[in-house]
């Protein structure tokens, strides 16, 4: 929370004036290249955007992290309050929340947490697509940081303003140039919190799939499966998305779905040992041991850093094959013309 403070007067002002040159030096660069270029090219981009459906939670002291995250999560369909998020993200001794923990907390709620590419153009594209962006600003200076989270919701380039849900202000209107400076000090950090069927407007394949894979660690397999399906519509030949699809199906005990995905992966990426290894495992689980062993052998032939795991897969399949062979023998009602002879010598 920020308090009102009386302005200094008299000699203090004169002293302040004396230090202006130094101050100008300390405050760093004054230019706003991104704002200038966005203004110049405004007719091509989203010059006026309005993101709807973002509720406002006024923050309590030091709680801009939980408040901003709660706004983004509610927009993404998760009913949660800042107070519920505080024990999940707040660091009492730092009197604040770390970016990484906001990301992790969004994922704990089963949502895709995606950090956008730095720069005003990405931010404007996301707002234009109707996605609110949690941003980290340094409201102070590099040597006296005042870190602050807020949620960008609206922008109007012609009017030179961006609108943030910030602190205790539901619609903080900020000049673009000032925003650019405060935002640049965090390295233009912006976070999207999306439902799993919605791709970021500025999506990049690698970071997106990493964001989805992180949901698996948190056992949000349903959400991850939807997100992999969304990813496969955008990148039908993505090996990671296909394997992820198989893995989430497997975790959800959807064995036919998993087999389909692994087969697709192996067909489109015949050099991937992981595709063959996982295919071998699902085939073994479905009882197709001969085909499973073949796939595992193939994975070992392909090699790679995970070859030790492929060998383990094969070993287990061979154990099961051995068990199956032994269990077939003593069954009294099966036809076994060759067995007695084979066992006599």
């Amino acid at each position: 929370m920020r308090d009102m403070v009386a302005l200094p007067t008299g000699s203090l002002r004169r002293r302040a004036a004396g230090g202006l040159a130094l101050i100008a030096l300390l405050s760093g660069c004054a230019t706003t290249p991104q704002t200038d270029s966005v203004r110049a090219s405004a007719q091509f981009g989203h010059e006026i955007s309005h993101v709807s459906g973002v509720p406002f939670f006024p923050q309590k002291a030091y709680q801009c992290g939980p408040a901003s995250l709660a706004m983004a999560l509610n927009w993404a369909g998760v009913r949660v309050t800042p107070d519920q998020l505080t024990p999940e993200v707040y660091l009492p001794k730092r009197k604040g929340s770390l970016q990484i923990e906001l990301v992790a907390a969004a994922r704990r709620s089963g949502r895709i947490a995606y950090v956008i590419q730095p720069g005003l153009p990405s931010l404007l594209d996301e707002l234009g697509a109707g996605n609110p962006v949690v941003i980290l600003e340094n409201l102070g200076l590099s040597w006296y940081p005042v870190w602050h989270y807020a949620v960008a919701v609206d922008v109007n380039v012609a009017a030179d303003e961006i609108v943030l849900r910030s602190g205790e202000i539901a619609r903080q209107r900020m000049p673009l140039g000032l925003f650019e400076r405060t935002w640049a000090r965090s390295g233009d950090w912006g976070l999207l919190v999306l439902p799993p069927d919605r791709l970021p407007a500025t999506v990049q394949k690698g970071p997106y799939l990493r964001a989805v894979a992180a949901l698996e660690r948190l056992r949000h397999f349903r959400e991850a499966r939807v997100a992999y399906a969304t990813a496969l519509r955008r990148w039908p030949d993505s090996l990671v998305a296909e394997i992820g699809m198989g893995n989430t199906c497997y975790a959800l005990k959807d064995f036919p779905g998993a087999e389909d995905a692994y087969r697709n992966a192996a067909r489109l990426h015949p050099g991937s040992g992981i595709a063959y290894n996982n295919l071998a495992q699902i085939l073994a689980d479905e009882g197709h041991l001969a085909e499973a062993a073949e796939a595992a052998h193939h994975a070992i032939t392909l090699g790679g850093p995970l070859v030790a795991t492929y060998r383990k897969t094969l070993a287990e399949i061979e154990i099961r094959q051995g068990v199956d062979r032994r269990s077939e023998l003593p069954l009294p009602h099966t036809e076994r013309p060759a067995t007695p002879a084979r066992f006599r010598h």
Partner: protein
Amino acid sequence: MNKFSLATRPVSRFLILCLVFMGIHVAAARAQIIGTETMINSRAVTSENRARVQAFLERKEVRKQMLAMGVNPKNVSARVNSLTNAQVADLAGRIGKLPAGGDFGGVLFIGLVVFLVLLYTDIMGYTDVFPFVKKHAR
């Protein structure tokens, strides 16, 4: 009593053996599916085991730091476990240094010089610390 224990000893031995074999059997039936996160990281990893050990140690370190930062012990595990290995590596040793967004609790604590600098930079539109400084859209 003694008789009873004599009689039960072979039974308990048998049970122990059963449990041991069951354990082996369960271990052997464990799936060897390669996880998506492992797959994503496998290109950068030379040794799976080394990476696993490193991740384990870093997680321990992050847990310790979070406790030192005043996080309630009953929340620490959930918070550490929900981090990916890459995030844990980012955090380990840096929890005290990374930006912690939290605004700040009242400008009265700022030294006078800092206050004047920030007031000036606020007026000039470089910073946005004080709400009472009017910002004009240019």
